[in-house]
C-alpha cells in the first residue's frame, strides 16, 4: 500500500469518525435500543464501491474501535461490531451484482444485515430470545436510514471522480 492510498484511507476513517461523533449529539427521536441514523455509514458504503474489501474493512474497524472510545460506551461495541461484520460481508458480496446506480439498494440491504447481526448478538449476549421482537422495528427504521445514507453516498460517488 502506497502513501497516497494510506492517506486516503486515514482521511476517510477520520471523516467517518467525525460524522459518528456529531451524530451522537443529535437527539434520537426513536427511544428503541439499536435504532440509529448511522450517518457514518455513508463513508462505509462509499468505500465498499471505491476501495478494495480489505481497505474498507480497515476503515470500518478503525471507526468502530475509536467510535466506541469516543462515545464512552464500550459495551455497545459488541452489538455494533456484530452488525458491522454482517453488513460489510453482505455489501462486499453485493458489490459484484449491483451497479453503482443501485448503490442505495446495496446500502438498504447492508442496513438490514446490520440489524440482523445486532439482534443476533443481543439474543446471544442477553440469553433472551425475546429480544428478537425488536427485529421488525429495527428493519423498518434501518432500511429507511440505509436508503438515506445510500442516496448520500450515491451523490458523493457521482461528485468525486478519480
Amino acid at each position, binding site marked *: 500500500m502506497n502513501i497516497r492510498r494510506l492517506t486516503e484511507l486515514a482521511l476517510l476513517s477520520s471523516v467517518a469518525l467525525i460524522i459518528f461523533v456529531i451524530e451522537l449529539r443529535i437527539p434520537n427521536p426513536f427511544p428503541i435500543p439499536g435504532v440509529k441514523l448511522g450517518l457514518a455509514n455513508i463513508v462505509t458504503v462509499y468505500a465498499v464501491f471505491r476501495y478494495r474489501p480489505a481497505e474498507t474493512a480497515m476503515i470500518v474497524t478503525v471507526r468502530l474501535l475509536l467510535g466506541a472510545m469516543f462515545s464512552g460506551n464500550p459495551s455497545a461495541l459488541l452489538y455494533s461490531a456484530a452488525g458491522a461484520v454482517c453488513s460489510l460481508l453482505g455489501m462486499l458480496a453485493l458489490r459484484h451484482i449491483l451497479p453503482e446506480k443501485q448503490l442505495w439498494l446495496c446500502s438498504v440491504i447492508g442496513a438490514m444485515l446490520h440489524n440482523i447481526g445486532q439482534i443476533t448478538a443481543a439474543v446471544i449476549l442477553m440469553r433472551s430470545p425475546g*429480544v428478537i*421482537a425488536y427485529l421488525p422495528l429495527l428493519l423498518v427504521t434501518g432500511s429507511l436510514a440505509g436508503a438515506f445514507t445510500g442516496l448520500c453516498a450515491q451523490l458523493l460517488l457521482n461528485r468525486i471522480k478519480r
Partner: protein
Amino acid sequence: MRNRKLLIAVALIFLVSVCLSVCILRHSDRRTVEIVQDGAVLYTFDLNRAEDQEIRVPAADGGNNLIVISGGTICIAEADCPDQTCVKMGELKSDYLPIVCLPHKLIVRFAEGEA
C-alpha cells in the same frame, strides 16, 4: 434481472416488517411483569397489587439501573450509562417489546401467562 428480484425481496421484507411492527407496538393487557438480568429472573410483580416502589439493580460491570413502579406502571427511571435508551423508552406497554438495557443486560417485560 437478478437485481429486480433482489429489489422485490427487499420491498417484501420491508412491508412484512411494517406489519409486524404495528402488531408489536400494541399495548398489552397483561399485568404481571418480571425483571430479568443476564437470563435470570430477579423480581416478579403484579402491577395491579404492587405498591409504588423503587428498585436499584446493580449490573456486573459496576453500573446500575433504578426501576420505578408507580400507579400500576413500571419504567426504568435512571441508568448510569451514556446512552440512556432504556430510560427514554418510558413505561412498559407492549407484550413483545421489553424495556432493554443493552449495556447492563437488563430486561423488564410482561411475564408469560397470568399469575
